[in-house]
């Protein structure tokens, strides 16, 4: 039986266009190292939910990061020739890395991964100590919160 709360925060879902773009940045520190994929002398390492480090390891004893591809919600990476493939939250994107220091987005398949919102588990309403409905993995980006009355299933508490 779901408890009915007199008042609780409810996530508002949508698509945040800012998060659906790929940006190319200079070398970034590793925050949360993730999966790797190698092509020739280039190594690509996911930084969980943030993007992909591009590493030139042609000198095996002195590998160098040469750039960072910012990709929101990214978990996976694969490379074929000069094409890198990753997930931008729930979109599949292909990126040309023929000049690895200046990659560019080639194509995007929207909503290729309907359950790709795992990173939103940690999203919380702006106010502490309040009940809220935990963000879903498959409804879209959390673009805001509303306070509603007589809400069932608000079993998370913000902290």
């Amino acid at each position, binding site marked *: 039986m779901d408890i009915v709360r007199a008042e609780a925060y409810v996530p508002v879902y949508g698509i945040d266009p800012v998060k659906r773009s790929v940006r190319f940045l200079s070398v970034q520190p*590793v925050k949360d190292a993730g*999966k790797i*994929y190698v092509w020739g002398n280039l190594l690509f*390492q996911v930084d969980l939910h943030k993007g992909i480090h591009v590493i030139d390891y042609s000198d095996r*004893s002195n590998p160098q990061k040469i750039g960072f591809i910012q990709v929101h919600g990214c978990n996976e990476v694969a*490379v074929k020739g000069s094409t890198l*493939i990753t997930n931008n939250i729930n979109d599949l994107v292909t990126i040309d890395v023929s000049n690895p220091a200046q990659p560019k987005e080639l194509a995007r398949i929207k909503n290729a991964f309907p*359950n790709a919102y795992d990173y939103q588990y940690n999203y919380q309403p702006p106010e502490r100590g309040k009940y809220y409905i935990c963000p879903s993995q498959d409804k879209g980006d959390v673009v805001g919160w509303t306070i509603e009355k007589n809400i069932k299933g608000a079993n998370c508490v913000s902290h």
Partner: protein
Amino acid sequence: MKRTQLLAFVLFAMTAMVYLSCDKNADAAASPTAGGAGGSLARFAIAGNYLYIVSTRTLEVFDISNPEMPALKKAVNAGIDIETIFPYKDKLFLGARTGMYIFSLADPLNPVKEGSITHFRACDPVVSNDSLSYVTLRSFGTDCGNLKNVLNVYNVKNIKDPKLINTIEMKSPYGLGIKDKGLYVCEGENGLAVMDLDNPYSPVKKMDFRDEVYYDVIPYGNVLITYIRNGVCFYDISNPLQPVLLSKLKG
């Protein structure tokens, strides 16, 4: 071009085989034109012109021959709780929390489930060669299942009927990889284990590295690329059983 890439892929795949130890192939795989490789924890795998993706229950096929127009071609019901995909020659090995599934890519657009075998519930990447699959099953620090942490060896010569032939106790196994007689098993906080496949049915631990927290590996020609907690390490594996640290890139 297509043919060159295919050849390159085959050459690379050969270096992962237990029974081949030709250094020429290994060198070819290390050259920039020889194709790519991912780790054993991946959900993306590339074979030929296709990208194969596993989600929890499905195996999806994307045509990536034109990177400006990738296209979803097929979605196959594959199983439950699937976590990893490993391409080897004309097969895909899928690791799920309750078992391993083997798909044939005889028709790359239509992967067909040929065989499967169940195991106790755990987190489980898989790597394979022509006759044997190595699967780590980790329960340590997960919500994946019970209290066991093992390396399982399966005979997959007949992919329609994989057979469990050995189980080796591990500490907290994550990703793994094969180069000739070397089997590398990441043990998370417990380091990187180097195992001898002289008897491929019965891997024996030879040494380990306890300097980092290791999660996954890619044996790539003579280089072992490892994914560690805060970056990557490179090892020379010209002698697969004696990896030599080349460098680390952290933070």
